[in-house]
Protein backbone atom coordinates (compact mmCIF):
# COMPACT_ATOMS: atom_id res chain seq x y z
CA UNK A 1 0.00 0.00 0.00
CA UNK A 2 1.18 3.45 -0.65
CA UNK A 3 1.92 5.61 2.28
CA UNK A 4 2.15 9.28 2.11
CA UNK A 5 5.11 10.97 3.60
CA UNK A 6 3.33 13.65 5.51
CA UNK A 7 0.99 11.36 7.37
CA UNK A 8 3.45 10.24 9.92
CA UNK A 9 2.79 7.83 12.61
CA UNK A 10 1.76 9.18 15.93
CA UNK A 11 4.63 7.45 17.63
CA UNK A 12 8.09 8.57 16.81
CA UNK A 13 10.26 5.54 17.30
CA UNK A 14 13.97 5.45 16.67
CA UNK A 15 14.90 3.95 13.32
CA UNK A 16 15.75 0.62 14.94
CA UNK A 17 12.57 0.48 16.91
CA UNK A 18 10.63 1.53 13.87
CA UNK A 19 12.05 -1.37 11.88
CA UNK A 20 11.16 -3.65 14.72
CA UNK A 21 7.58 -2.37 14.77
CA UNK A 22 7.29 -2.93 11.06
CA UNK A 23 8.76 -6.38 11.47
CA UNK A 24 6.18 -7.30 14.08
CA UNK A 25 3.39 -6.50 11.70
CA UNK A 26 4.10 -9.67 9.77
CA UNK A 27 2.84 -12.66 11.67
CA UNK A 28 4.80 -15.09 9.57
CA UNK A 29 8.02 -13.25 10.25
CA UNK A 30 7.32 -13.31 13.97
CA UNK A 31 6.56 -17.00 13.78
CA UNK A 32 9.85 -17.55 11.96
CA UNK A 33 11.57 -15.60 14.67
CA UNK A 34 10.06 -17.80 17.34
CA UNK A 35 11.22 -20.90 15.54
CA UNK A 36 14.67 -19.43 15.26
CA UNK A 37 14.57 -18.50 18.92
CA UNK A 38 13.58 -22.06 19.69
CA UNK A 39 16.62 -23.34 17.83
CA UNK A 40 18.86 -20.90 19.63
CA UNK A 41 17.44 -21.91 23.00
CA UNK A 42 17.92 -25.51 21.95
CA UNK A 43 21.55 -25.06 21.15
CA UNK A 44 22.15 -23.27 24.42
CA UNK A 45 20.30 -25.53 26.82
CA UNK A 46 20.30 -28.64 24.64
CA UNK A 47 23.27 -30.34 26.26
CA UNK A 48 21.69 -30.01 29.69
CA UNK A 49 18.34 -31.54 28.85
CA UNK A 50 19.31 -34.19 26.34
CA UNK A 51 19.09 -37.71 27.68
CA UNK A 52 22.17 -39.11 25.89
CA UNK A 53 25.64 -38.29 24.82
CA UNK A 54 25.48 -37.91 21.04
CA UNK A 55 28.43 -40.23 20.66
CA UNK A 56 27.19 -42.85 23.09
CA UNK A 57 26.69 -46.08 21.24
CA UNK A 58 24.24 -48.62 22.45
CA UNK A 59 24.77 -51.89 20.59
CA UNK A 60 21.52 -53.17 22.02
CA UNK A 61 19.44 -50.46 20.46
CA UNK A 62 20.59 -50.22 16.89
CA UNK A 63 18.34 -48.60 14.32
CA UNK A 64 15.33 -48.20 16.55
CA UNK A 65 12.56 -46.39 14.77
CA UNK A 66 10.99 -43.27 16.26
CA UNK A 67 8.79 -43.89 19.25
CA UNK A 68 5.54 -43.49 17.37
CA UNK A 69 6.41 -46.28 15.00
CA UNK A 70 6.34 -50.02 15.46
CA UNK A 71 9.68 -50.91 16.90
CA UNK A 72 10.33 -47.60 18.62
CA UNK A 73 10.83 -47.15 22.30
CA UNK A 74 10.08 -44.15 24.46
CA UNK A 75 13.62 -44.10 25.66
CA UNK A 76 14.74 -43.02 22.22
CA UNK A 77 12.05 -40.63 21.12
CA UNK A 78 13.32 -40.15 17.60
CA UNK A 79 14.94 -43.56 17.37
CA UNK A 80 18.59 -44.47 17.03
CA UNK A 81 21.06 -44.68 14.22
CA UNK A 82 23.03 -47.60 12.92
CA UNK A 83 25.43 -47.46 15.84
CA UNK A 84 22.72 -47.23 18.46
CA UNK A 85 23.19 -43.53 19.13
CA UNK A 86 20.19 -41.53 20.21
CA UNK A 87 18.95 -39.61 17.20
CA UNK A 88 17.27 -36.86 19.22
CA UNK A 89 20.46 -36.08 21.10
CA UNK A 90 22.44 -36.22 17.90
CA UNK A 91 20.00 -33.89 16.21
CA UNK A 92 20.17 -31.38 19.03
CA UNK A 93 23.96 -31.52 19.07
CA UNK A 94 23.88 -31.36 15.30
CA UNK A 95 21.82 -28.18 15.35
CA UNK A 96 24.13 -26.85 17.99
CA UNK A 97 27.12 -27.62 15.89
CA UNK A 98 25.73 -26.51 12.54
CA UNK A 99 23.95 -23.40 13.77
CA UNK A 100 26.57 -22.51 16.34
CA UNK A 101 29.41 -22.74 13.89
CA UNK A 102 27.41 -20.85 11.30
CA UNK A 103 26.80 -18.05 13.76
CA UNK A 104 30.47 -17.92 14.58
CA UNK A 105 31.42 -17.93 10.93
CA UNK A 106 28.97 -15.20 10.10
CA UNK A 107 30.35 -13.06 12.90
CA UNK A 108 33.89 -13.52 11.66
CA UNK A 109 32.93 -12.99 8.06
CA UNK A 110 30.93 -9.91 8.98
CA UNK A 111 33.74 -8.26 10.86
CA UNK A 112 36.24 -9.03 8.16
CA UNK A 113 33.86 -8.12 5.38
CA UNK A 114 32.72 -4.88 6.92
CA UNK A 115 36.27 -3.82 7.63
CA UNK A 116 37.37 -4.58 4.10
CA UNK A 117 34.21 -3.19 2.57
CA UNK A 118 34.48 0.03 4.49
CA UNK A 119 38.09 0.41 3.44
CA UNK A 120 37.16 -0.26 -0.15
CA UNK A 121 34.16 2.03 -0.02
CA UNK A 122 36.14 4.92 1.41
CA UNK A 123 39.21 4.39 -0.71
CA UNK A 124 39.44 6.12 -3.99
CA UNK A 125 41.27 5.56 -7.22
CA UNK A 126 43.53 2.71 -8.11
CA UNK A 127 43.56 1.04 -4.74
CA UNK A 128 39.82 0.78 -4.63
CA UNK A 129 39.51 -0.53 -8.15
CA UNK A 130 42.15 -3.20 -7.60
CA UNK A 131 40.37 -4.31 -4.48
CA UNK A 132 37.09 -4.36 -6.33
CA UNK A 133 38.47 -6.51 -9.11
CA UNK A 134 39.95 -8.95 -6.67
CA UNK A 135 36.68 -9.16 -4.81
CA UNK A 136 34.68 -9.65 -7.96
CA UNK A 137 36.84 -12.55 -8.97
CA UNK A 138 36.65 -14.03 -5.51
CA UNK A 139 32.89 -13.75 -5.54
CA UNK A 140 32.66 -15.57 -8.81
CA UNK A 141 34.28 -18.70 -7.43
CA UNK A 142 31.56 -21.00 -6.14
CA UNK A 143 31.74 -21.69 -2.39
CA UNK A 144 32.04 -25.37 -2.95
CA UNK A 145 35.07 -24.83 -5.12
CA UNK A 146 36.79 -22.71 -2.49
CA UNK A 147 35.98 -25.41 0.01
CA UNK A 148 37.38 -28.10 -2.24
CA UNK A 149 40.59 -26.16 -2.75
CA UNK A 150 41.05 -25.48 0.95
CA UNK A 151 40.22 -29.03 1.86
CA UNK A 152 42.72 -30.20 -0.72
CA UNK A 153 45.41 -28.06 0.82
CA UNK A 154 44.67 -28.62 4.47
CA UNK A 155 42.89 -31.94 4.42
CA UNK A 156 39.34 -32.99 5.13
CA UNK A 157 37.78 -31.75 8.34
CA UNK A 158 35.31 -29.46 9.99
CA UNK A 159 37.77 -26.71 10.85
CA UNK A 160 39.14 -26.59 7.34
CA UNK A 161 35.69 -26.44 5.86
CA UNK A 162 34.93 -23.61 8.26
CA UNK A 163 37.81 -21.67 6.81
CA UNK A 164 36.44 -22.25 3.39
CA UNK A 165 32.97 -21.09 4.26
CA UNK A 166 34.13 -18.04 6.17
CA UNK A 167 36.22 -17.10 3.18
CA UNK A 168 33.29 -17.61 0.89
CA UNK A 169 30.99 -15.47 3.02
CA UNK A 170 33.28 -12.49 3.26
CA UNK A 171 32.84 -11.19 -0.29
CA UNK A 172 29.10 -10.71 0.18
CA UNK A 173 29.70 -8.54 3.20
CA UNK A 174 32.46 -6.65 1.49
CA UNK A 175 30.33 -6.06 -1.54
CA UNK A 176 27.33 -4.79 0.36
CA UNK A 177 29.32 -2.71 2.78
CA UNK A 178 31.28 -1.24 -0.05
CA UNK A 179 28.15 -0.29 -1.94
CA UNK A 180 26.51 1.13 1.13
CA UNK A 181 29.52 3.07 2.29
CA UNK A 182 30.19 4.41 -1.14
CA UNK A 183 26.59 5.52 -1.39
CA UNK A 184 26.64 7.16 2.00
CA UNK A 185 29.95 8.84 1.33
CA UNK A 186 28.27 10.89 -1.36
CA UNK A 187 25.59 12.09 1.00
CA UNK A 188 25.63 15.51 2.47
CA UNK A 189 25.66 14.46 6.07
CA UNK A 190 29.00 12.81 5.51
CA UNK A 191 30.30 15.95 3.87
CA UNK A 192 28.98 17.84 6.88
CA UNK A 193 30.84 15.57 9.25
CA UNK A 194 33.94 15.85 7.14
CA UNK A 195 33.76 19.58 7.46
CA UNK A 196 33.54 19.07 11.18
CA UNK A 197 36.94 17.55 10.89
CA UNK A 198 35.90 13.93 11.13
CA UNK A 199 38.50 11.34 10.21
CA UNK A 200 37.61 8.23 8.28
CA UNK A 201 37.44 6.03 11.33
CA UNK A 202 35.09 8.43 13.03
CA UNK A 203 33.05 8.81 9.86
CA UNK A 204 32.57 5.10 9.64
CA UNK A 205 31.85 4.25 13.23
CA UNK A 206 29.97 7.36 14.28
CA UNK A 207 28.17 8.31 11.11
CA UNK A 208 27.77 5.36 8.79
CA UNK A 209 27.58 2.38 11.10
CA UNK A 210 24.38 3.44 12.92
CA UNK A 211 22.63 3.64 9.58
CA UNK A 212 24.01 0.32 8.45
CA UNK A 213 22.88 -1.72 11.38
CA UNK A 214 19.71 -3.14 9.91
CA UNK A 215 21.37 -3.77 6.61
CA UNK A 216 23.99 -5.78 8.43
CA UNK A 217 21.37 -7.77 10.29
CA UNK A 218 19.62 -8.59 7.05
CA UNK A 219 22.92 -9.48 5.46
CA UNK A 220 23.76 -11.66 8.43
CA UNK A 221 20.56 -13.63 8.13
CA UNK A 222 21.33 -14.27 4.49
CA UNK A 223 24.88 -15.26 5.28
CA UNK A 224 23.66 -17.44 8.11
CA UNK A 225 21.37 -19.46 5.91
CA UNK A 226 24.12 -19.81 3.34
CA UNK A 227 26.58 -20.88 6.02
CA UNK A 228 24.22 -23.53 7.36
CA UNK A 229 23.54 -24.90 3.92
CA UNK A 230 27.22 -24.90 3.04
CA UNK A 231 28.42 -26.51 6.24
CA UNK A 232 25.90 -29.27 5.98
CA UNK A 233 26.54 -29.69 2.26
CA UNK A 234 30.25 -30.08 2.88
CA UNK A 235 29.50 -32.52 5.68
CA UNK A 236 27.24 -34.41 3.35
CA UNK A 237 29.86 -34.56 0.63
CA UNK A 238 32.37 -35.86 3.15
CA UNK A 239 34.57 -32.79 2.86
CA UNK A 240 33.56 -31.12 6.09
CA UNK A 241 32.73 -32.55 9.47
CA UNK A 242 33.63 -36.21 9.69
CA UNK A 243 31.66 -38.95 11.37
CA UNK A 244 31.11 -39.58 14.21
CA UNK A 245 30.69 -35.88 14.88
CA UNK A 246 27.00 -35.06 14.99
CA UNK A 247 27.00 -32.52 12.20
CA UNK A 248 23.69 -32.62 10.38
CA UNK A 249 25.07 -33.02 6.86
CA UNK A 250 27.52 -35.70 7.95
CA UNK A 251 24.70 -37.47 9.78
CA UNK A 252 22.67 -37.41 6.62
CA UNK A 253 25.39 -38.97 4.55
CA UNK A 254 25.97 -41.60 7.22
CA UNK A 255 22.28 -42.37 7.19
CA UNK A 256 22.35 -43.06 3.47
CA UNK A 257 23.78 -46.48 4.23
CA UNK A 258 20.62 -47.47 6.02
CA UNK A 259 18.24 -45.53 3.84
CA UNK A 260 15.76 -48.39 3.55
CA UNK A 261 15.84 -49.70 7.02
CA UNK A 262 15.76 -46.31 8.66
CA UNK A 263 14.35 -43.66 6.34
CA UNK A 264 13.74 -41.40 9.33
CA UNK A 265 17.47 -41.07 9.85
CA UNK A 266 17.57 -39.32 6.48
CA UNK A 267 14.38 -37.39 6.97
CA UNK A 268 15.11 -35.92 10.38
CA UNK A 269 18.53 -34.27 9.93
CA UNK A 270 17.37 -32.87 6.60
CA UNK A 271 14.24 -31.56 8.22
CA UNK A 272 16.27 -29.92 10.95
CA UNK A 273 18.49 -28.14 8.44
CA UNK A 274 15.47 -27.15 6.42
CA UNK A 275 13.63 -25.72 9.42
CA UNK A 276 16.63 -23.75 10.57
CA UNK A 277 17.24 -22.29 7.14
CA UNK A 278 13.56 -21.65 6.62
CA UNK A 279 13.16 -19.78 9.89
CA UNK A 280 16.26 -17.73 9.17
CA UNK A 281 15.06 -16.91 5.70
CA UNK A 282 11.65 -15.93 6.96
CA UNK A 283 13.18 -13.66 9.56
CA UNK A 284 15.50 -12.23 6.93
CA UNK A 285 12.61 -11.61 4.57
CA UNK A 286 10.60 -10.02 7.33
CA UNK A 287 13.48 -7.75 8.24
CA UNK A 288 14.05 -6.78 4.67
CA UNK A 289 10.38 -5.97 4.21
CA UNK A 290 10.34 -4.01 7.46
CA UNK A 291 13.39 -2.08 6.42
CA UNK A 292 11.90 -1.35 3.04
CA UNK A 293 8.66 -0.18 4.64
CA UNK A 294 10.52 2.05 7.01
CA UNK A 295 12.64 3.61 4.32
CA UNK A 296 9.78 4.27 1.92
CA UNK A 297 7.70 5.96 4.58
Amino acid at each position, binding site marked *: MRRIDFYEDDLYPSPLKHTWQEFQKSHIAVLGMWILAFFIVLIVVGPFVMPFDPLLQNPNAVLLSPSWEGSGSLQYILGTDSLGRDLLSRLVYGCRMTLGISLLLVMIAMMLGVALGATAGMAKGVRSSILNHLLDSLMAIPTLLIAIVIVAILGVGLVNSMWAIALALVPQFVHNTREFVRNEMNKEYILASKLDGARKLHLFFYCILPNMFELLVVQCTMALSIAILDISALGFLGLGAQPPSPELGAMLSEALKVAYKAPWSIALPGLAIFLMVLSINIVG*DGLRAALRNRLTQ
Partner: protein
Amino acid sequence: MILRTLIRNTNLLISTLLILSLFSFVLAFLFPGDPLENLSGLTNLSEQEYERVFLAYGFDQSYVTQFWIYLNKLFEGDWGLSFASGIPLWQELSLALPASIELSIYSLFVSLMIGIPLGFWAGFKYHKPADYSLLAISVVSYSLPIFWLALILILIFSLSLGWLPLSGRVSLLFDIPEVSGFMFVDIFNSEIDNKNAAYISALKHLIMPTLSLTIITAAIIFRLTRRSFIDVMSSQYIKTAYTRGLSHTQVILRHGVRNTLLPILPLFAMQSAVLLTNAMIVEFVYSWPGVGNWLIQAISQRDYPAIRAGMLAVSSLVIVVTIMTDVSAKLINPALVGENHAEN
Protein backbone atom coordinates in the same frame (compact mmCIF):
# COMPACT_ATOMS: atom_id res chain seq x y z
CA MET B 1 30.26 4.33 -25.22
CA ILE B 2 29.62 0.75 -26.26
CA LEU B 3 33.21 0.37 -27.23
CA ARG B 4 34.25 1.67 -23.86
CA THR B 5 32.08 -0.83 -22.03
CA LEU B 6 33.45 -3.64 -24.16
CA ILE B 7 37.05 -2.69 -23.68
CA ARG B 8 36.67 -2.12 -19.98
CA ASN B 9 35.08 -5.48 -19.49
CA THR B 10 37.52 -7.29 -21.72
CA ASN B 11 40.25 -5.84 -19.58
CA LEU B 12 38.43 -6.95 -16.50
CA LEU B 13 37.95 -10.41 -17.94
CA ILE B 14 41.56 -10.82 -18.95
CA SER B 15 42.96 -9.55 -15.69
CA THR B 16 40.62 -11.72 -13.66
CA LEU B 17 41.46 -14.78 -15.69
CA LEU B 18 45.10 -13.97 -15.20
CA ILE B 19 44.59 -13.76 -11.45
CA LEU B 20 42.77 -17.06 -11.49
CA SER B 21 45.47 -18.81 -13.46
CA LEU B 22 48.07 -17.35 -11.13
CA PHE B 23 46.03 -18.68 -8.26
CA SER B 24 45.88 -22.13 -9.81
CA PHE B 25 49.61 -21.99 -10.40
CA VAL B 26 50.19 -21.12 -6.76
CA LEU B 27 47.90 -23.96 -5.74
CA ALA B 28 50.39 -26.45 -7.12
CA PHE B 29 52.82 -25.19 -4.52
CA LEU B 30 50.28 -25.09 -1.74
CA PHE B 31 49.03 -28.61 -2.24
CA PRO B 32 50.88 -31.35 -0.44
CA GLY B 33 53.55 -33.09 -2.44
CA ASP B 34 55.90 -32.05 -5.16
CA PRO B 35 54.80 -28.86 -7.00
CA LEU B 36 56.16 -30.25 -10.23
CA GLU B 37 54.04 -33.35 -9.89
CA ASN B 38 51.03 -31.25 -9.00
CA LEU B 39 51.55 -29.16 -12.11
CA SER B 40 52.31 -31.89 -14.57
CA GLY B 41 50.35 -34.76 -13.09
CA LEU B 42 53.28 -37.06 -13.79
CA THR B 43 54.14 -39.34 -10.88
CA ASN B 44 56.66 -42.05 -10.20
CA LEU B 45 59.04 -40.71 -12.77
CA SER B 46 62.49 -42.06 -13.28
CA GLU B 47 65.28 -39.63 -12.56
CA GLN B 48 65.90 -38.76 -16.22
CA GLU B 49 62.25 -38.27 -16.93
CA TYR B 50 61.92 -36.07 -13.88
CA GLU B 51 64.86 -34.01 -15.05
CA ARG B 52 63.24 -33.57 -18.44
CA VAL B 53 59.90 -32.47 -16.95
CA PHE B 54 61.76 -30.24 -14.51
CA LEU B 55 63.31 -28.38 -17.40
CA ALA B 56 60.15 -28.42 -19.49
CA TYR B 57 58.29 -26.61 -16.72
CA GLY B 58 61.15 -24.18 -16.27
CA PHE B 59 61.72 -25.18 -12.67
CA ASP B 60 65.35 -24.25 -12.99
CA GLN B 61 64.31 -20.65 -13.59
CA SER B 62 62.48 -17.94 -11.70
CA TYR B 63 58.88 -18.24 -10.59
CA VAL B 64 57.89 -15.67 -13.17
CA THR B 65 59.27 -17.80 -15.96
CA GLN B 66 57.60 -20.84 -14.50
CA PHE B 67 54.30 -19.05 -14.48
CA TRP B 68 54.85 -17.88 -18.02
CA ILE B 69 55.55 -21.44 -19.15
CA TYR B 70 52.51 -22.59 -17.24
CA LEU B 71 50.35 -19.99 -18.97
CA ASN B 72 51.65 -21.08 -22.34
CA LYS B 73 50.85 -24.65 -21.53
CA LEU B 74 47.36 -23.67 -20.47
CA PHE B 75 46.83 -22.00 -23.82
CA GLU B 76 48.12 -25.02 -25.66
CA GLY B 77 45.60 -27.15 -23.84
CA ASP B 78 48.26 -28.95 -21.87
CA TRP B 79 46.76 -28.80 -18.40
CA GLY B 80 48.71 -31.75 -17.07
CA LEU B 81 47.62 -35.26 -16.33
CA SER B 82 45.28 -36.59 -13.71
CA PHE B 83 46.98 -38.52 -10.92
CA ALA B 84 44.08 -40.89 -10.70
CA SER B 85 43.52 -41.82 -14.30
CA GLY B 86 46.65 -40.64 -16.07
CA ILE B 87 44.46 -39.05 -18.71
CA PRO B 88 45.12 -35.44 -19.80
CA LEU B 89 43.03 -33.15 -17.62
CA TRP B 90 41.95 -31.07 -20.55
CA GLN B 91 40.40 -34.15 -22.05
CA GLU B 92 38.65 -35.10 -18.84
CA LEU B 93 37.42 -31.56 -18.30
CA SER B 94 36.15 -31.25 -21.81
CA LEU B 95 33.78 -34.10 -21.03
CA ALA B 96 32.94 -33.26 -17.44
CA LEU B 97 32.37 -29.55 -17.92
CA PRO B 98 29.77 -29.89 -20.69
CA ALA B 99 27.86 -32.35 -18.53
CA SER B 100 27.63 -29.73 -15.79
CA ILE B 101 26.87 -26.97 -18.23
CA GLU B 102 24.16 -29.06 -19.81
CA LEU B 103 22.53 -29.67 -16.47
CA SER B 104 22.84 -26.02 -15.43
CA ILE B 105 21.52 -24.68 -18.69
CA TYR B 106 18.48 -26.91 -18.72
CA SER B 107 17.59 -26.07 -15.17
CA LEU B 108 18.28 -22.38 -15.69
CA PHE B 109 16.03 -22.47 -18.71
CA VAL B 110 13.24 -24.24 -16.88
CA SER B 111 13.70 -21.95 -13.88
CA LEU B 112 13.39 -18.90 -16.06
CA MET B 113 10.31 -20.33 -17.73
CA ILE B 114 8.72 -20.91 -14.33
CA GLY B 115 10.19 -18.13 -12.22
CA ILE B 116 9.67 -15.14 -14.46
CA PRO B 117 5.98 -15.64 -15.33
CA LEU B 118 5.16 -16.54 -11.75
CA GLY B 119 7.09 -13.50 -10.57
CA PHE B 120 5.00 -11.29 -12.80
CA TRP B 121 1.84 -13.02 -11.73
CA ALA B 122 2.61 -12.59 -8.04
CA GLY B 123 3.66 -8.99 -8.57
CA PHE B 124 0.38 -8.46 -10.34
CA LYS B 125 -1.48 -9.94 -7.41
CA TYR B 126 0.61 -8.00 -4.91
CA HIS B 127 -0.75 -8.44 -1.37
CA LYS B 128 -3.40 -10.87 -2.50
CA PRO B 129 -3.67 -14.53 -1.47
CA ALA B 130 -2.11 -15.71 -4.73
CA ASP B 131 0.91 -13.55 -4.07
CA TYR B 132 1.23 -14.67 -0.48
CA SER B 133 1.00 -18.35 -1.31
CA LEU B 134 3.54 -18.10 -4.12
CA LEU B 135 5.84 -16.16 -1.85
CA ALA B 136 5.48 -18.76 0.87
CA ILE B 137 6.23 -21.55 -1.57
CA SER B 138 9.28 -19.72 -2.80
CA VAL B 139 10.67 -19.20 0.70
CA VAL B 140 10.15 -22.85 1.44
CA SER B 141 11.79 -24.02 -1.73
CA TYR B 142 14.85 -21.88 -1.51
CA SER B 143 15.34 -22.92 2.09
CA LEU B 144 15.57 -26.56 1.09
CA PRO B 145 19.03 -28.05 1.43
CA ILE B 146 19.65 -29.19 -2.11
CA PHE B 147 21.21 -32.52 -1.21
CA TRP B 148 18.26 -33.40 0.95
CA LEU B 149 15.83 -32.32 -1.71
CA ALA B 150 17.62 -34.49 -4.24
CA LEU B 151 17.49 -37.46 -1.89
CA ILE B 152 13.79 -36.96 -1.21
CA LEU B 153 13.11 -36.79 -4.93
CA ILE B 154 14.97 -40.06 -5.36
CA LEU B 155 12.97 -41.63 -2.56
CA ILE B 156 9.72 -40.57 -4.17
CA PHE B 157 10.22 -40.83 -7.89
CA SER B 158 12.75 -43.61 -8.13
CA LEU B 159 12.33 -45.88 -5.19
CA SER B 160 8.66 -45.55 -4.35
CA LEU B 161 7.15 -44.90 -7.73
CA GLY B 162 9.87 -46.35 -9.90
CA TRP B 163 9.32 -43.75 -12.57
CA LEU B 164 12.74 -42.28 -13.02
CA PRO B 165 16.29 -43.56 -12.95
CA LEU B 166 18.48 -42.12 -10.25
CA SER B 167 21.97 -42.01 -11.61
CA GLY B 168 23.95 -41.13 -14.65
CA ARG B 169 22.99 -39.34 -17.83
CA VAL B 170 21.71 -42.16 -19.97
CA SER B 171 21.23 -45.88 -19.56
CA LEU B 172 24.63 -47.53 -19.85
CA LEU B 173 23.19 -49.96 -22.32
CA PHE B 174 23.47 -47.26 -24.92
CA ASP B 175 27.04 -47.09 -25.99
CA ILE B 176 27.22 -43.43 -26.82
CA PRO B 177 30.67 -42.12 -27.62
CA GLU B 178 31.37 -38.93 -25.70
CA VAL B 179 32.54 -36.40 -28.17
CA SER B 180 31.02 -33.05 -27.32
CA GLY B 181 30.08 -33.90 -23.76
CA PHE B 182 26.52 -32.73 -24.39
CA MET B 183 24.41 -35.84 -24.20
CA PHE B 184 21.74 -34.97 -26.73
CA VAL B 185 24.32 -33.83 -29.24
CA ASP B 186 26.33 -36.97 -28.68
CA ILE B 187 23.31 -39.18 -29.15
CA PHE B 188 22.47 -37.28 -32.29
CA ASN B 189 25.95 -37.85 -33.68
CA SER B 190 26.28 -41.42 -32.49
CA GLU B 191 25.88 -44.44 -34.68
CA ILE B 192 23.63 -46.49 -32.46
CA ASP B 193 20.46 -48.07 -33.78
CA ASN B 194 18.06 -47.10 -31.13
CA LYS B 195 18.43 -43.36 -30.98
CA ASN B 196 14.91 -42.51 -30.01
CA ALA B 197 15.04 -44.83 -27.07
CA ALA B 198 18.34 -43.22 -26.15
CA TYR B 199 16.80 -39.76 -26.28
CA ILE B 200 14.02 -40.88 -24.00
CA SER B 201 16.46 -42.54 -21.65
CA ALA B 202 18.63 -39.40 -21.55
CA LEU B 203 15.58 -37.31 -20.89
CA LYS B 204 14.40 -39.49 -18.05
CA HIS B 205 17.81 -39.26 -16.49
CA LEU B 206 17.70 -35.51 -16.84
CA ILE B 207 14.37 -34.89 -15.15
CA MET B 208 15.23 -35.33 -11.50
CA PRO B 209 18.58 -33.49 -11.40
CA THR B 210 17.03 -30.65 -13.35
CA LEU B 211 14.03 -30.62 -11.09
CA SER B 212 16.08 -30.42 -7.91
CA LEU B 213 18.08 -27.53 -9.28
CA THR B 214 15.02 -25.87 -10.71
CA ILE B 215 13.05 -25.87 -7.50
CA ILE B 216 15.69 -23.72 -5.87
CA THR B 217 16.74 -21.60 -8.81
CA ALA B 218 13.18 -20.89 -9.89
CA ALA B 219 12.36 -19.71 -6.39
CA ILE B 220 15.22 -17.24 -6.50
CA ILE B 221 14.31 -16.01 -9.95
CA PHE B 222 10.69 -15.75 -8.92
CA ARG B 223 11.57 -13.54 -5.99
CA LEU B 224 13.83 -11.30 -8.01
CA THR B 225 11.23 -10.88 -10.72
CA ARG B 226 8.40 -10.26 -8.30
CA ARG B 227 10.28 -7.62 -6.35
CA SER B 228 11.46 -5.88 -9.46
CA PHE B 229 8.00 -5.90 -10.99
CA ILE B 230 6.42 -4.47 -7.86
CA ASP B 231 9.03 -1.73 -7.75
CA VAL B 232 8.49 -0.90 -11.38
CA MET B 233 4.74 -0.86 -11.11
CA SER B 234 4.84 1.58 -8.24
CA SER B 235 7.16 3.92 -10.08
CA GLN B 236 6.20 7.33 -11.33
CA TYR B 237 6.53 6.56 -15.02
CA ILE B 238 4.04 3.72 -14.83
CA LYS B 239 1.52 6.07 -13.22
CA THR B 240 2.30 8.64 -15.86
CA ALA B 241 1.82 6.04 -18.55
CA TYR B 242 -1.66 5.38 -17.23
CA THR B 243 -2.54 9.05 -17.24
CA ARG B 244 -1.24 9.23 -20.79
CA GLY B 245 -4.23 7.07 -21.57
CA LEU B 246 -2.45 3.79 -22.23
CA SER B 247 -4.40 0.66 -21.49
CA HIS B 248 -3.44 -1.77 -18.77
CA THR B 249 -1.98 -4.28 -21.21
CA GLN B 250 -0.04 -1.61 -23.03
CA VAL B 251 1.46 -0.28 -19.84
CA ILE B 252 2.51 -3.69 -18.61
CA LEU B 253 3.79 -5.01 -21.90
CA ARG B 254 5.56 -1.92 -23.08
CA HIS B 255 6.87 -0.52 -19.84
CA GLY B 256 6.37 -3.03 -17.06
CA VAL B 257 8.03 -6.10 -18.50
CA ARG B 258 11.09 -4.50 -19.94
CA ASN B 259 11.89 -2.41 -16.92
CA THR B 260 11.33 -5.37 -14.66
CA LEU B 261 13.73 -7.60 -16.50
CA LEU B 262 16.48 -5.12 -17.30
CA PRO B 263 17.76 -4.59 -13.77
CA ILE B 264 17.55 -8.24 -12.77
CA LEU B 265 19.47 -9.63 -15.73
CA PRO B 266 22.84 -8.97 -14.09
CA LEU B 267 21.48 -10.56 -10.93
CA PHE B 268 20.80 -13.73 -12.87
CA ALA B 269 24.47 -13.71 -13.75
CA MET B 270 25.33 -13.53 -10.08
CA GLN B 271 23.20 -16.60 -9.64
CA SER B 272 25.37 -18.60 -11.99
CA ALA B 273 27.90 -19.23 -9.22
CA VAL B 274 25.14 -20.41 -6.90
CA LEU B 275 23.60 -22.49 -9.64
CA LEU B 276 26.90 -24.16 -10.40
CA THR B 277 27.53 -24.88 -6.72
CA ASN B 278 24.14 -26.48 -6.44
CA ALA B 279 24.71 -28.34 -9.67
CA MET B 280 27.91 -29.76 -8.27
CA ILE B 281 26.08 -31.11 -5.24
CA VAL B 282 23.26 -32.46 -7.37
CA GLU B 283 25.81 -34.19 -9.57
CA PHE B 284 27.18 -35.94 -6.55
CA VAL B 285 23.78 -37.21 -5.47
CA TYR B 286 22.69 -38.32 -8.92
CA SER B 287 26.11 -39.64 -9.97
CA TRP B 288 26.01 -37.19 -12.84
CA PRO B 289 29.41 -37.33 -14.51
CA GLY B 290 29.94 -33.60 -14.33
CA VAL B 291 32.71 -31.47 -13.02
CA GLY B 292 31.36 -31.38 -9.46
CA ASN B 293 31.32 -35.11 -9.15
CA TRP B 294 34.70 -35.20 -10.78
CA LEU B 295 36.17 -32.71 -8.30
CA ILE B 296 34.75 -34.52 -5.30
CA GLN B 297 36.26 -37.75 -6.59
CA ALA B 298 39.50 -35.87 -7.07
CA ILE B 299 39.49 -34.86 -3.41
CA SER B 300 39.06 -38.40 -2.19
CA GLN B 301 41.80 -39.57 -4.54
CA ARG B 302 44.18 -36.72 -3.66
CA ASP B 303 44.26 -35.90 -7.34
CA TYR B 304 45.82 -32.45 -6.98
CA PRO B 305 46.33 -31.67 -10.65
CA ALA B 306 42.64 -32.36 -11.17
CA ILE B 307 41.62 -30.02 -8.36
CA ARG B 308 43.90 -27.34 -9.71
CA ALA B 309 42.57 -27.66 -13.23
CA GLY B 310 38.97 -28.03 -12.11
CA MET B 311 39.21 -24.91 -9.98
CA LEU B 312 40.61 -22.95 -12.85
CA ALA B 313 38.09 -24.24 -15.37
CA VAL B 314 35.01 -23.76 -13.22
CA SER B 315 35.90 -20.35 -11.88
CA SER B 316 36.92 -19.14 -15.32
CA LEU B 317 33.63 -20.38 -16.66
CA VAL B 318 31.73 -18.50 -13.97
CA ILE B 319 33.75 -15.35 -14.54
CA VAL B 320 33.19 -15.48 -18.27
CA VAL B 321 29.48 -16.05 -17.83
CA THR B 322 29.18 -13.31 -15.22
CA ILE B 323 31.05 -10.73 -17.21
CA MET B 324 29.34 -11.62 -20.47
CA THR B 325 25.92 -11.30 -18.88
CA ASP B 326 26.94 -8.11 -17.24
CA VAL B 327 28.16 -6.65 -20.49
CA SER B 328 25.12 -7.71 -22.43
CA ALA B 329 22.88 -6.38 -19.70
CA LYS B 330 24.72 -3.09 -19.93
CA LEU B 331 24.56 -3.02 -23.69
CA ILE B 332 20.84 -3.60 -23.87
CA ASN B 333 20.01 -1.37 -20.95
CA PRO B 334 19.77 2.15 -22.32
CA ALA B 335 19.73 3.60 -18.85
CA LEU B 336 23.25 2.30 -18.35
CA VAL B 337 24.58 2.91 -21.83
CA GLY B 338 23.71 6.55 -21.74
CA GLU B 339 25.19 7.10 -18.34
CA ASN B 340 27.86 9.69 -18.54
CA HIS B 341 29.03 9.35 -15.01
CA ALA B 342 29.81 5.70 -14.68
CA GLU B 343 31.61 4.96 -11.50
CA ASN B 344 35.33 4.26 -11.30
